[in-house]
């Protein structure tokens, strides 16, 4: 077992509206409103899809011990099944990091896990079953994004036609509904300026740049498509017309859309730069395989432009999760179809260059890196009906993998086969740490050194 460099220590702190260059990165992709783990994380919580015919067949939160100092390092230490297959997908922490919100794209249920009472054993605190009715018809809660005392949840679909028209929904940290903000459409731009050909009203991810009073959203597709068999969908020209082609820039404070930008080909994950003068975010288009820069010009106007190709579009690499380094110099891009993790140099954000690529498995979806960029974790699952059914000889199909990154290459530390373990299809990862809650690793385990969070 490889010993990580330097003394292991923990610091967690809350970032306020003004982000400095020393400030904050999966750790590097979180809300700027949120407490950060800048040292060694203890756990990775893996929101995992249930799979028919495997184990208990239902969605579950899987806790993996990732602290090399722990005797359980590299093991699944806890699982919590929630009932049913909900199309478990993304999850997000509250700003105080005491709760993990994990949602289901199919049933629109949201599971709120308490991860602070015992970080090693999350418990189900509350389930929101009435997201659709409370929101006025938003279906498919995707990103749970921390706002001060609140959670902003993007939707993917609606209860009228299961198409892509959708909205964002705001809840209190207590799980009480606040408001719904529908995405701007051609029929109702809500005062936004349509800058190109599209105003599709679709949704996917959201990120905030608080110092610019800006919220940025991206656009994927509706329930019909994300629940459909991928092969069937690719062969259905009607269905293929129903992907998002927009990124919307919002007035964060007013929660009102300001400008609709053309970003054709399903822009998915959004990552905004951390640097105090870096008024830009990145997204990647799943179908057209490009990195797009969403940036503010000197006049305060927002624009979108492609800044790199990702692989060969005809081979449908399907870029999925991305992760920006804390110093805004690197952008990690996973391409689902070829199972590659790619690293782009984005020190010139207008001209991104691929500098590294490594095959991780038969397919790859999410990645999370530590704040210092030295540890990178990968999972494999994209969507239950899009995932591959079989892998080539020697390739892993459904996995959680832990790597170290030395600035030049990835080195595998350990891997967990989620099929062999009867767990399911692993999706989003979030980090947990004893230090966040002024707790120590329970006695009897080595290496428990912590510094209390102070916020």
């Amino acid at each position, binding site marked *: 077992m490889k010993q990580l460099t330097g003394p292991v220590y923990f610091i967690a702190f809350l970032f306020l509206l003004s982000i400095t260059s020393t400030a904050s990165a999966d750790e590097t992709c979180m809300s700027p409103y949120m407490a950060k783990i800048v040292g060694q994380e203890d756990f990775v919580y893996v929101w995992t899809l249930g799979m028919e015919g495997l184990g208990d067949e239902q969605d579950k939160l899987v806790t993996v011990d990732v602290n090399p100092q722990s005797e359980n390092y590299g093991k699944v230490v806890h699982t919590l099944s929630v009932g049913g297959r909900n199309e478990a997908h993304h999850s997000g922490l509250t700003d105080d990091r005491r709760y993990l919100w994990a949602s289901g794209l*199919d049933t629109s249920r949201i599971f709120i896990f308490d991860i602070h009472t015992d970080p090693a054993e999350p418990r189900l605190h509350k389930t929101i079953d*009435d997201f659709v009715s409370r929101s006025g018809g938003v279906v498919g809660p995707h990103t749970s994004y921390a706002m001060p005392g609140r959670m902003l949840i993007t939707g993917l679909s609606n209860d009228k*036609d299961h198409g892509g028209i959708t909205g964002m929904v705001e809840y209190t940290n207590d799980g009480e509904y606040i408001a719904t903000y529908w995405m701007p459409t051609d029929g109702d731009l809500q005062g936004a300026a349509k800058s190109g050909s599209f105003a599709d009203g679709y949704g996917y991810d959201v990120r905030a740049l608080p110092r610019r009073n800006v919220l940025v959203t991206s656009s994927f597709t509706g329930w019909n498509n994300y629940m*459909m068999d991928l092969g069937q969908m690719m062969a259905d020209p009607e269905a293929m017309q129903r992907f998002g082609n927009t990124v919307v820039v919002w007035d964060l404070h007013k929660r009102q859309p300001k400008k609709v930008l053309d970003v054709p080909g399903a822009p998915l994950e959004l990552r905004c730069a951390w640097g105090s003068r870096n008024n830009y975010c990145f997204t990647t288009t799943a179908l057209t395989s490009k990195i797009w820069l969403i940036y503010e010009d000197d006049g305060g106007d927002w624009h979108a432009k492609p800044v790199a190709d990702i692989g060969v579009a005809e081979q449908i690499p399907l870029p999925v999760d991305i992760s920006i380094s804390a110093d805004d110099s690197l952008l990690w891009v996973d391409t689902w179809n070829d199972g590659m993790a790619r690293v782009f140099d984005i020190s010139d954000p207008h001209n991104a260059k691929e500098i590294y690529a490594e095959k991780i498995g038969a397919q790859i979806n999410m990645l999370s890196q530590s704040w210092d960029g030295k540890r990178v974790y990968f999972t494999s699952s994209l969507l239950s009906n899009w995932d591959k059914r079989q892998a080539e000889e020697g390739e892993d199909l459904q996995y959680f993998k832990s790597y170290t990154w030395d600035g030049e290459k990835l080195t595998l530390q350990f891997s967990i086969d989620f099929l062999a373990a009867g767990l399911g299809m692993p999706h989003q990862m979030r980090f947990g740490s004893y230090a966040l809650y002024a707790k120590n690793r329970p006695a009897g385990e080595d290496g428990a050194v912590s510094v209390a969070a102070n916020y």
Partner: protein
Amino acid sequence: MAPYPWRPITERRCNRLTPAVLLAAGVFCLIPAETLHAQQPQHRHEAPAQILAPGYRVLEYEAPEPGTYQLPPLGRAGGGLVLDEAGRERPLNEFLGDKFVVLSFIFTSCNDVNGCPLATFVLGQLQQRLDADRRLKDQVRMVSLSFDPDFDTPQVMVEYGRKFSRNNYDWRFLTTASTERLQPLLRGFNQSVQKEYNEAGEYTGNISHILRVFLLDKASRVRNIYSVSFLHADTVINDIITLAMEGGDDGFGAAPQATAGAGEGAAGDGALSGLPALEIPENNPLTQEKILLGRQLFFDRRLSHNNTLSCAMCHIPEQGFTSQELSVAIGIEGRTLRRNAPTLYNVGFARVLFHDARENLLEQQVWTPLLARNEMANPSVGFVIDRLKSLPEYRGKFEQAFDGKGPGMETVGMALASYQRTLNSAGSAFDRWYYGGDKDALDEQARAGFGLFTGKARCVACHTVNRDYALFTDHALHNTGIGYLVSMGTPDDKVQVTVAPGTTLTVDRAFITLAGKPAPNDLGHYEITGDPDDRWKYRTPMLRNVALSAPYMHNGSLRTLREVVEFYNRGGIRNELLDPLVQPLGLSDAEMDSIVAFLNSLTGSNVDELVADALTQPVGNVTR
């Protein structure tokens, strides 16, 4: 920006204009100071060359054909108190709602020929056009409403009206009792007016305003607003006809509709022009209670095992009661289905149900999707019934609709069947032409298309047209080769995949095959009968509203009506069981266009009404 068409003239007031004198003396009355200008905003002290507004002239373009476009509601008409010609104060609403209303704000002393006189002139022209069509004439009222209560007393309005109104035409000349009474009316119509004052601060008698003439439907909703730049009798009359054509409004051969929400005509008596009488099972007569209960069930996502799918999620009202966004429907948890969701328009007339004709009664049919593992996936009948019993929104409703009977296998089927039997749609342009005797209802191309449909192209052999009605189906099953191709064909190695607008990639089929589970095979009617001769036979669909139900064929593999006509023109897909009726047709491009034009004329007049009714039903979702 709206033009500023009305330019007040302070030196002179030109009163008592009549249409007859407008183009002669009336114009000269104004012209000494300046000529007319219709389009450009202008400064008060300029004297640019002016021209008469288009409303006075022959329209320079062909007015859009009635019924070929939509006039979406722009909001409700404003309200307030007005004085009628006898000086009685009455709510404006009394003059709205029972007819289509063309409403114009004017003042009688208005002296800009392109202002109020234009509005009055065009309304006068409308009278003439309406005289030619008595059915329409009885449905239209014109209202000229003064916004100068100080000068325009009821008596002045009567005098003014006498100059224009002919033959006791329904043209009302109204005013208000005071400026205070006028204000809510102006606000309601968002009509800004401003009195003009001279340099000494004295009211000049002129009122500056932007010309707006409003077209209101029978629900008192504003459906069009005309400005000086395009107010023209031709346009207005076509708009009125367009409104009359929508929702099966009578006067055009279409009888009142049977819809669930209207609460009337719910007998589903098939009274729509072009449809036969609707057969309703004796044990399940249509009642309003059953229809409304069925509608509620239809839109309830809790009728699926995991609360995600209602009937309406695949039979989407705004998408022709089918799904225009998918070739084949998607079931619970995204499970793969084999066939296109059929439209439910006129399903009450269908003698066989499902593409493979496995069912014949709506009351029974509803349970198949409720229980199918790849559709709504309820584990049992009992599970559905128990859930309905537990939902407060249904408390007492079954009992009320079914004489005390609660939710049960029978009553759920009867309620859903009842709602579906109200989704009847006809009164199309074709119906008005073919069954209504309106020679102008169908254009030449569509008429030619019908000739081909019943002649050279032989469509009518399966898509039957009867003497008194047409369902465009023989209620039978045929092999066109589409199903054969899917089961037996060899697909190309490369597939064109459009990944974004304007971006189409050539993708290896191997990727698509690897990416998905193979779709289940589909052998059509054979799956019901076991008779090998029934392989790849599917039901003949009805064609009413066919323009609204793309994509086409049992598997949604053809995207447009043109593709469908081309498919049949090629003679379908050869196979040993190909229906002998499917033969190469030798149609020219123009002939195929004509058939498509005909098919597009089959959209019922009450579609908007049925959709609007559906949209009033809240979607059933899990509540806390």
